[in-house]
């Protein structure tokens, strides 16, 4: 009797699945749920504080309850930031980020395509191994030779000095994630395109590229985030104020306006806002791509 029920339980599982799961989840996970909501508060409270404070003037900052809404909201802090060299730094960040992710994703995609399609080649396996090794090495530790290299290439204190190493640093992870996706493209599709006389280049563009789009978006945003928020490379490879990117500008701004905390926080909001907007637009794709890309 017992054997029979347990067997039928397994075989009919797909049918009973949804309601069964839902019931289990509801009764269970109160502990995870509690942790989830507490964590949400831990995440959101500082963010709320940043935004609220950025609309206060200095006297309100010193006297008001830190979490109270501003009694007399002001946009003066934002005006102060925007009227500084902020737009220049913003543009620099845009140039460096776009200048990095477009070539980085393009060459990583080509490399991932070659590694999957050329499986069996010792050369490609070796290259893949090299990239995988790059994942395990904190490449930031190689900053001193990179600095020397950039000086010798006469690129020191230019935006290109930030772009080239950033591309190189983003290759290992991009190739890994993209290769995982290209591997899932059914081999039959390649075979039938080949029969129709397509070249590898054509198959890459017309077959692999469209099917890998979610991964391309994921990789672009992930790398873009890293470059947009990068601090070490700009700190070491540039010097003049007009080559500063946002995180570095934020740091110097904090030095200049250390007393004016609301203004510093307004600059934090302004440097983060474009990324938050980008995230809001591409969130679904980013999250699904990210979870799929890393959990394999």
């Amino acid at each position: 009797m017992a054997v029979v029920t347990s067997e039928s339980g397994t075989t009919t599982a797909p049918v009973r699945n949804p309601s069964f799961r839902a019931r289990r989840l509801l009764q269970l996970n109160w502990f995870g749920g509690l942790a989830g909501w507490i964590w949400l508060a831990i995440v959101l409270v500082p963010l709320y504080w940043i935004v609220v404070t950025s609309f206060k003037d200095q006297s309100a900052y010193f006297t008001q309850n830190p979490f109270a809404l501003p009694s007399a909201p002001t946009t003066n802090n934002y005006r102060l930031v925007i009227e500084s060299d902020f737009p220049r730094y913003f543009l620099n960040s845009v140039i460096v980020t776009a200048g990095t992710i477009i070539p980085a994703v393009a060459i990583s995609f080509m490399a991932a395509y070659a590694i999957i399609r050329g499986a069996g080649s010792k050369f490609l396996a070796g290259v893949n191994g090299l990239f995988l090794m790059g994942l395990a090495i904190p490449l930031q530790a190689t900053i001193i030779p990179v600095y020397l290299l950039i000086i010798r290439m006469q690129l020191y204190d230019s935006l290109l000095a930030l772009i080239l190493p950033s591309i190189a640093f983003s290759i290992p992870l991009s190739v890994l994630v993209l290769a995982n996706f290209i591997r899932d493209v059914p081999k039959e599709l390649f075979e039938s395109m080949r029969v129709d006389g397509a070249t590898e280049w054509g198959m890459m563009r017309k077959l692999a590229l469209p099917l890998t789009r979610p991964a391309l978006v994921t990789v672009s945003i992930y790398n873009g985030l890293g470059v947009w928020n990068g601090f070490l490379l700009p700190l070491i490879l540039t010097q003049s104020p007009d080559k500063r990117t946002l995180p570095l500008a934020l740091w110097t701004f904090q030095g200049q306006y250390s007393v004016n905390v609301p203004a510093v926080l307004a600059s934090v909001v302004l440097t983060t806002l474009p990324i938050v907007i980008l995230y809001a637009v591409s969130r679904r794709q980013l999250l699904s791509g990210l979870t799929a890309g890393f959990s394999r």
Partner: protein
Amino acid sequence: MTSAAPPVPPGTVSKPASGVGRSGPVAWMVLPALLLFIVFGVVPLVGVLVLSFTRWDGLGAIHAAGLSNWTSVLRDPQLPHSILVTFEIMILSWVVQTPMSLLLGTFLAGRQRYRAFLAVLYFIPLLLSSAAIAITYKALLDPNFGLGPGLKLDFLTQDWLGRSDLAIAVVIFIVSWQFIPFHSLIYQGGVRQIPTTMYEAASIDGAGRIRQFFSITVPQLKYTIITSSTLMVVGSLTFFDLIFVLTAGGPGDATRVLALDMYQRGFMSNRMGPASVIAALIVLLGLALALLLRRLGGSTTASQQEGA
């Protein structure tokens, strides 16, 4: 460009599709990435080792220095301290982040709508730069004008960044604040790949929720745990910007991790040789830790990929 696709070279067509024959025409596609990675990744990696045997102030000529950098750095009492701080932050932040991320990731893997909503909000700390986060927390924790005095809460009114033990705790808290969301997303993806039939079978056998978590979820997530831990541990070797902006290594040298030690020796004291020694140690440490974690997983990345 390829509209009039040229016929495939006869040799490749007539061959049985055995993989090896096909590697020829695609192999060149790997070259741009390979070239850039060699110039800005592999060459500097070798360069770190070479520079560690030289004397260089960052501007002038580079002179051979033999083993002197290595002997002086390895004898410097600062080094064990920096290594200790690095490991302390690495291990404690792993201990805080991993259980929390596992729990949150398992929780988020459920399908209710509000969980999707939580996952959206969780991601936000990852969008901020470490510099922005450090600046924010510096203001929040200010003993005179920060949260504590503002809310008139005594336990929050501490010299958080002025006491060594507190400063390390703050760094670990902020790192967790920033990265737990990321790792819980990784775990969320991992949990969703566990077949639900396993849970059903277990609950028919009478296993409770907690039992299921430890007997099914955690073992099934083995590779996810390895991936996430590798990212965490190797990533923690590069915590530079957060600590640099938050404490600049202080108070004293309480939060001077290896990456900061390297920066201070190299770019602030203009002694690139000793700084390269530290850099080489960071690289070796990263490699050793990654290999160790892979060994612990009892598998290689390759076999994981075959299975995918």
